[in-house]
């Protein structure tokens, strides 16, 4: 895994570590507030947003 980068959590404004080999759409947890985030942009800079809440029919 390449070097992680940090970006701001859109929920708590804390810093979130994003793996250097993150994929578009990858889901991450903010260590500071616990929010689930998803990667929405890889370049030129990593961007994340809060991931959607679980829907009733979500699952395995």
């Amino acid at each position, binding site marked *: 895994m390449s070097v992680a980068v940090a970006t701001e959590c859109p929920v708590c404004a804390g810093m979130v570590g994003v793996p250097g080999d993150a*994929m*578009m*759409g*990858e*889901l991450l947890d903010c260590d500071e507030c616990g929010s689930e985030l*998803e*990667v929405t942009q890889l370049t030129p800079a990593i961007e994340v947003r809060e*991931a*959607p809440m*679980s*829907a*009733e*029919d*979500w*699952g*395995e």
Partner: protein
Amino acid sequence: MNTPGSPAVGMVCTGVRAEERMLAEAFAARNVELHVIDDRTIHGDLSSWPAGFPRVDAVLLRSKGHWRNVAIAHWLESLGAQPVNASRVLETCGDKVLTTLALLGAGVPTLSASIAFSQESGALAAEGVGYPLVVKPVIGSWGRLIGKVNDADALDLALDHKEALGGAPHSVTYLQRFVPTGGRDIRSFVVHDRCIAAIARTSAGWKTNTALGGKATGLTLDPELKRVSEAAAAAVGSGAVAVDVFETDEGYLVNEVNGTMEFRNSVATTGVDIPGFVADFVLEQFAQRAAVAR
């Protein structure tokens, strides 16, 4: 579209979880061109290939949403594609009534279950099941909205809530016999008719879902567990599925079958490359189709 020797695979998902990342790594290790397709971007006329969906040779469906998975599977199948899993598998596994009926129809040992369509008929069905029992939503997963009901008063409350607060999926009440398992059950993984691994899930409570904190440990497969797991997978239409199994005095009883299986806690604990098996299955499906087409 790529040549038969070098297929392009589309993986449809709702965000990339640990499982999708592991699958992406498995496809990369096999030199497969992988397109990760966010299901929220897919759209289009049902008579043609979906917009926002590259022309791939094989498709792995991993949407979190049951209805999305089923819709996309049917759409692709109508256009000649054979996604993994197939619509029949996804529909059956995603609906507990259909799962139970499929298991019963194939003679697979499973927990007895009843359904009802009103509070009054729910109470009557519960008398047949006996208390305690488990009320489950027909659609849903991860242990959500599943309740152990110890008596008629508790059932009345549960059904009242479903009627008052639930949406259309709650118009069918699914009541399952409660089996005391000591906070332990088995999850086995079946890919292409072969049971490849199993874990035991343990919890301080009666729900063992790892999504709720259940702990996973690797389990050695025994012939009967393999047989029951593979029979359950065949009953729902084969494919790549995870089978939840209870150990009881009556032997192994299948609780549920999962058509979009999660395995993040099961690779290290079993030592089995579950995503690798799934990737190989997807590629085998493509190779078989390519051979037929030639």
